[in-house]
């Protein structure tokens, strides 16, 4: 029976030859992840179960990244719970401040998630790792507690939707724009319960950073996962990082899909998603005059070194508008150091931006740049829901790093072409 890449990975982890969409299966997991918001609930449940050890201390990652560096006493208490648990059960991959980065940038960077893996994370953007050719999906804290005991998780095998991208991307058009464009097309529940498989010559030419940005936002279309079959670009990224064996899968040419959507993306512009849903997309030329108070460049979506390089190329020798606050968040210590070595931090500071330590803080209105009543931000993050980055009357416009940087200079949402 022909299979999609997703079905092949799930079958291999269920000890089966094949699986079919709709089947309920139990799968072995290669990595279970939780952060400082979701881990405390999982830890409580685990301790209440009175089980004496975790299934495998090397297959659990605990990353305190959301409200860290601790924004208040209660956040500190949540991280203490993670730290205590990590020591007690010898969790190998607990990341203390200094090594901590935004989880979905950190884990691939450290080689902890690999092609062919099944990864679950108590964070909805766990789907990011699909860019490496793994099956990766967001779950809740209870799932993580159960998986820490059993090493397994239950899944309904998803149908897949195949997305084929053809053409040549314009100068300022990136993976972020491809995924926003796609969500604009299918809607925020356009892929609910399904796997989004990204293919085509445009994907082949995309960097790992661009691919991770795309898979990262599969959840914003309601998908269970996003996935890109491993190729040379993937293997170049993985090989220096992997410390264990892995398997590359690919969909059979005659595999069955719930839908196939083909896009010619040669003429698409940088995309901007208007409040209050990621599906409210427009090309940059159709944005109109939208003054902004803040620009944020970072997050699990766009906090990688490639993103910071693009932002720096726009900001170099320029200063931001005096009415705008620019917050740049390198996603991991390695990204931070690389940005420093390349002189990018100097460019950001000279432009009157600030550089934050790695954290998810501003993306979810936690800290490090919370919006006040009526304030407007352009952000390279992934969600623009009501109150997402602060007050319920504030607004978030999602865009790529080049547009966010240009907007900070212009004082309104705009393109680098306008500078």
């Amino acid at each position, binding site marked *: 029976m022909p299979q999609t890449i997703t079905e092949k990975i799930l079958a291999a982890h269920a000890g089966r030859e094949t699986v079919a969409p709709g089947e*309920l299966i139990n799968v072995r997991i290669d990595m279970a992840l939780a952060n400082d*918001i*979701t881990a*405390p*609930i999982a830890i*409580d*449940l685990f301790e*209440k*179960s009175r*089980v004496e050890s975790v299934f495998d201390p090397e297959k659990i990652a605990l990353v305190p990244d*959301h*409200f860290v560096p601790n924004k*208040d006493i*209660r*956040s500190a*208490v*949540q991280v203490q719970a993670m730290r205590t648990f990590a020591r007690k059960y010898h969790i190998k991959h607990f990341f203390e401040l200094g090594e901590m980065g935004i989880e979905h940038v950190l884990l691939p960077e450290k080689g902890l998630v690999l092609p062919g893996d099944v990864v679950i*994370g*108590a*964070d*909805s953007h*766990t789907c990011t790792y699909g860019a490496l050719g793994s099956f990766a999906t*967001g*779950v*809740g*804290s*209870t*799932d993580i*507690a*159960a998986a820490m*005991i*059993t090493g397994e998780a*239950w899944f*309904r095998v998803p149908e897949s939707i195949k997305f084929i991208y053809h053409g040549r991307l314009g100068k300022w058009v990136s993976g972020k724009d491809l995924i926003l464009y796609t969500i604009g097309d299918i809607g*925020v*529940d356009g892929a*609910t*319960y399904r796997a989004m498989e990204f293919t085509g010559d445009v994907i082949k030419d995309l960097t790992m950073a661009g691919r991770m940005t795309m898979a990262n936002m599969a*959840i914003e279309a*309601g998908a*269970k996962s996003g996935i890109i079959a491993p190729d040379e670009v993937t293997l170049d990224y993985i090989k220096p990082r992997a410390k264990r064996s892995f398997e590359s899968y690919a969909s059979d040419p005659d595999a069955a899909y719930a839908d196939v959507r083909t896009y010619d993306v040669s003429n698409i512009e940088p995309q901007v998603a208007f409040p209050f*849903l990621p599906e409210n997309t427009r090309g940059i030329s159709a944005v109109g005059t939208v003054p902004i108070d803040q620009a944020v460049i970072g997050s699990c979506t766009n906090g990688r070194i490639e993103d910071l390089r693009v932002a720096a190329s726009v900001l170099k020798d320029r200063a931001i508008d005096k009415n705008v606050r620019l917050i740049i968040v390198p996603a991991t210590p390695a990204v931070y150091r690389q940005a420093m070595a390349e002189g990018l931090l100097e460019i950001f500071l000279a432009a009157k931006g600030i550089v934050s330590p790695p954290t998810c803080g501003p993306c*979810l*209105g*936690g800290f490090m740049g919370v919006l006040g009543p009526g304030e407007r931000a352009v952000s390279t993050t992934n*969600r623009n*829901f*009501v*109150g*997402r980055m602060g007050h*319920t009357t504030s607004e978030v416009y999602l865009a790529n790093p080049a547009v966010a940087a240009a907007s900070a200079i212009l004082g309104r949402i705009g393109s680098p072409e306008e500078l």
Partner: protein
Amino acid sequence: MTLEGRVWKFGDNIDTDVIIPAPYLVTTDMVELGKHCMEGVDALFAEKVSPGDIIVAGTNFGCGSSREHAPMALKGAGISCVIAEGFARIFFRNAFNMGLAIFESPGIVQGIQEGDQVSVDQDTGEIIDHTNGKRFLANPIPPFMQELIEVGGLMSHVMSKRRT
């Protein structure tokens, strides 16, 4: 078992950020989370809601973040169940795993008004609006999910399997 209560209605795409805004994710206490339930759409919701009340909503309820604090906040506020046209998948999964009753019933938003008295028979899936007399049927719950409900959630399921 039958759940009965007064209905609070919401639209499509009610995300977990409005169900429980991120600044409150510094606790795992269900009652405390309940005090801020739905604050992103209705700042006074937690004060108005009574134990047993039911939420009726449109499509894609619970989209966004995987925070289990969302079903916890609803439970903590006293909500007995959520009936929606459709659910986002992580929320759907979390609700069954942690024991919040949810029902999918396409067409429900048209048929029920805010403030109506509604009951749901958990075994048959029959939904009755006692205010307007209309009846609806919830989509059947998949057998494995039914099993989760019966044993009291995923952790009880895992522990009972370990014992056998």
